[in-house]
């Protein structure tokens, strides 16, 4: 029974890593948002499972935030923003998918190599969760680096943040997890509002960040 519990936790965390990979190569805006929704749902299941396993009721609250805020509100508002900005059908050119995937695999291997020996004495459950969480964080960073579009960069950041919530939930009995996940949700809400309020399309005619670089021209 103990083993089954741990296996379920690992399956969920592993699924989160896989979904991160799917984010890496997805080039359609709507597809990107769908996969992010999936990412958030798996996160909320994973946190809920940790809550059950650790018998920590406050983690259910974090799971609820993940389910309601990240899997419902964020995708919904992103979709409506994209409709208003008329970029919801955009296909982004993602260059070098093969190389990006290879780097991704390398990053996952790296996080396993770094984290597993470091956590040798820790609880087997949190031990592998933290390695997976690091992989998700690194994959999120990779996505932020390889994408040029603001919305995809933000989705990359949000997947990174999901990795952090997974790590915080996996750390046995860590206090302040709820506070931290709330603080992070506020941050993300600001980012999403930021995309909208700044109306990057209006000012720069495009949400492509290379346009931002153009604005800089002539200044030092």
């Amino acid at each position, binding site marked *: 029974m103990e083993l089954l519990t741990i296996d379920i936790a690992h399956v969920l965390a592993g699924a989160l890593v896989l979904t991160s990979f799917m984010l890496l190569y997805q080039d359609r805006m709507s597809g990107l948002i769908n996969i992010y929704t999936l990412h958030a749902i798996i996160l909320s299941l994973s946190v809920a499972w940790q809550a059950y396993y650790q018998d920590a009721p406050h983690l259910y609250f974090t799971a609820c935030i993940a389910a309601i805020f990240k899997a419902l509100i964020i995708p919904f508002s992103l979709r409506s923003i994209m409709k208003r900005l008329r970029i919801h059908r955009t296909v982004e050119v993602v260059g070098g998918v093969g190389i990006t995937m290879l780097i991704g695999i390398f990053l996952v291997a790296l996080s396993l190599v*770094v*984290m597993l*020996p*470091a*956590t040798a*004495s*820790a609880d087997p459950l*949190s031990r592998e969760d*933290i390695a997976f*969480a*690091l992989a998700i*964080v690194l994959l999120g*960073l990779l996505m*932020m680096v390889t994408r040029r579009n603001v919305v995809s*960069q933000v989705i990359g*950041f949000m997947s*990174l*943040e999901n990795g*952090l919530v997974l*790590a*915080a939930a996996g*750390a*046995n*009995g*860590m*206090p*302040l997890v709820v*506070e*931290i996940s709330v*603080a*992070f949700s*506020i*941050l993300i809400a*600001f*980012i999403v509002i*930021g995309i909208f309020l*700044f109306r*990057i399309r209006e*000012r*720069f005619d495009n949400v492509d960040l290379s346009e*931002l670089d153009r*604005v*800089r021209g002539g*200044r*030092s």
Partner: protein
Amino acid sequence: MSSDLFMVSNALVGIPAVAAIAVALEPAYRRSAIINLCASGATFLFALVLLVVEPESGGYLFVDDLNIVFVVLSTFIGFTTSVYSASYIDHEIETGRLTTRNVRFYHAMYQSLMCAMNLALLASNIGLMWVAVEVATLTTVLMVGIYRTPHALEAAWKYFILGSVGIALALFGTILIYMAAEPVLGQGYDAMVWKTLMSQAPQFNPRMLNVAFVFLMLGYGTKVGLAPMHAWLPDAHAEGPTPISAVLSGLLLNVALYAVLRFKMLLTANAAAITPGPLMITLGLASLIMAAFMLYRRGDIKRLFAYSSIEHMGIIAFAFGMGGPLANFAGLLHMTMHSLTKSAIFFSVGHIAQVKGTQKIADIRGLTQSQPALGWSLVVGVVAIIGLPPLGIFMSEFLVVSSTFARQPLLAIPLVFGLLLAFGALLLRLTGMAFGEPSRDQGEVKASMWPVYAHLSLVLLAGIYLPSHVVTWFQNVARLLG
């Protein structure tokens, strides 16, 4: 915790929080500027009380010798900046660059920032500290973008994204610290509280601490503005209102540095973990030399001094990375002097940009003739920041260099090289701006000069004579830092 101390430390967080709500409800901008000023002044007075009360810890806040230095410094500069900000904002309203609604928001964010910074400095556990740093980042992002121009929004966005990645990495490091402490201290708050962490640090899993420190260094290092994670800093300084540039350089960078120092102490306490020094030295030297080269090609006055902040944060990180009583003492002194000098420079630069109607260095000439008070303040400020005697930075830089020569002569070569490079660049720019045929003024400004004079005279005083109890105080802290 004794009840006096508890009340004082709560007041340091509580006054700005209450003031933030008060200014948010106050529509008249002159009155909200006065509330802003009074609240900052009261916070500073409470911070001074910390100097006489015996340090203790307990509850969610704690006070020890290390954070008293940071709290007193940051509340002092917070207070003088609020004085300066009042006259700066007056001018911005008159010229119509800001509306009264903007200013109301600006004042509320200013006090929220003060609250978040004091909370970050006084927080007794690593989770609360992280939340406070995050809130501080958010409030400054909102203030940087307040002019709503494309450039300001771009700067705010860049700062926001890079700052968010930074604090995300710092959170991962924080979780790892908890996981390293949990087997020893058990589940719950104890494994996140500084006091218990420090006392039990030798028993933590060293490999876990190593990984954690890399994340914390990169994460909080982004907020310190260390190269190569500095990209947000020049834009944020150049495009936001100038009081915010002063607060960013003078205070927020220090708060992030404080976080790094705390974790460095934790790692130093564990003999089996890596020594955090070399990592800090590398990042510090990289920032120093990169920024020194970048200083030569700046065309914008605020960007110029933003790069100078990167340079000085590099020197400070280098000094703390060297460690030992002398280098730590030099690092603390340099941090204090840099905060005072750099915010004084930004105070003058803000008014200069208002008078000249531009931030372009090429269009600012002959300041000492057309605007003697502003011009000479800038001259004294720059002379101080490049480290000429008899001002305070000369002394702290001299201590950093001499302690490096004594222990690691090879490291002193890149250090001195970087210092000389920066010296040349700033002197070159200063002569153009301060002397020669004056360029035409675009407007008049009722400058409030006493914050500038106060800062510069403190820096001068420290350069000539450092009172002995300040020396013993800093020596105690330096010893604490290991």
